[in-house]
């Protein structure tokens, strides 16, 4: 089995290496991918179309917003699936852990975390809201937000974190995130555009169509942030406790 796998893998490697000689020169600005009308359009026209300085955010949330919506849905699916797969097991630990986790939260750790967590959360908001101008956006901000709750769970225990963010609320928040995303899309559809055509939101917002895209992108990123932060925490909570939602890591 192992030998067969090794030979198979080597064959694939040779195939890929054979193709590599056909690749354009490293970093060539005139390579088809870099000089195609599509990516040139993104680089030259993002400012005109959406007024967003960060092209990645603009392409992510607007030009290819439909992808991003389904990416959010993938995260949501992961949360749904993990929770439902693990739920309904034995309520007590059936097999002993190899490690006994010290149950008493450490004073120094908890006090440090007490100081850090607000900073992390503010930073998460910053990353989310400033994603138009600097690297960042809904995913990164959402993950940072989820990580702050994971940090609480790690330094105290899962129960403390779950009182702040119960698992049912995780679900609701994640679903609300998708509702926000799809809702902005549907709203633009109701205003006469295509799905996710944010320019039509200018009819209800007191801004130009380009700025409407700008603001709608922020809304969309907030939706993404909701879903991602809730699901990341829910993933941790389910996986660390084997679905029992008590006495985690």
């Amino acid at each position, binding site marked *: 089995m192992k030998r067969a796998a090794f030979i198979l893998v080597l064959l694939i490697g040779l195939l890929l290496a054979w193709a590599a000689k056909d690749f354009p020169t490293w970093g060539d600005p005139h390579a088809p991918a870099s000089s195609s009308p599509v990516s040139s359009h993104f680089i030259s026209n993002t400012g005109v179309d959406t007024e967003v300085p960060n092209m990645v955010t603009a392409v992510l949330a607007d030009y290819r917003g439909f992808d991003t919506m389904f990416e959010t849905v993938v995260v949501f699916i992961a949360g749904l699936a993990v929770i439902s797969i693990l739920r309904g097991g034995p309520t007590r630990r059936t097999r002993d*852990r190899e490690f006994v986790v010290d149950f008493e939260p450490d004073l120094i750790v908890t006090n440090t975390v007490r100081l850090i967590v607000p900073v992390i959360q503010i930073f998460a908001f910053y990353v989310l809201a400033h994603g138009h101008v600097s690297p960042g956006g809904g995913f990164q901000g959402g993950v940072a937000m989820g990580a702050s709750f994971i940090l609480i769970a790690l330094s105290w225990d899962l129960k403390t974190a779950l009182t702040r963010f119960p698992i049912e609320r995780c679900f609701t928040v994640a679903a609300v995130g998708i509702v926000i995303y799809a809702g902005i899309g549907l709203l633009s559809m109701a205003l006469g555009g295509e799905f996710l055509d944010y320019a039509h939101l200018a009819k209800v917002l007191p801004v130009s169509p380009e700025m409407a895209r700008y603001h709608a992108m922020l809304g969309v990123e907030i939706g993404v942030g909701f879903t991602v932060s809730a699901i990341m925490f829910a993933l941790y909570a389910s996986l660390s*406790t084997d679905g029992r939602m008590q006495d985690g*890591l």
Partner: protein
Amino acid sequence: MGLELFNTLILSLLVVVAVLSLWVRDLVVSAVIFAIYSFLMCLLWAEMGAVDVAFTEATVGAGVSTVVLIATIFNLKRKAKD
């Protein structure tokens, strides 16, 4: 030239770390080495101009997926047979 050297160094480290994380028997160590791998990847991408990807990899790859991996491993047997 400096960047190229940096690039080469990280690329070769990546291979070493990838092999190492699969070679180690202790799964927790393996997960931590995988976090190192993710972080090296993130550095590499930042160097290649993909700042958003690097940011995402830093939060998702090196951050949450490591935590989730370790959280899972604590519920399983820690030693792997290979």
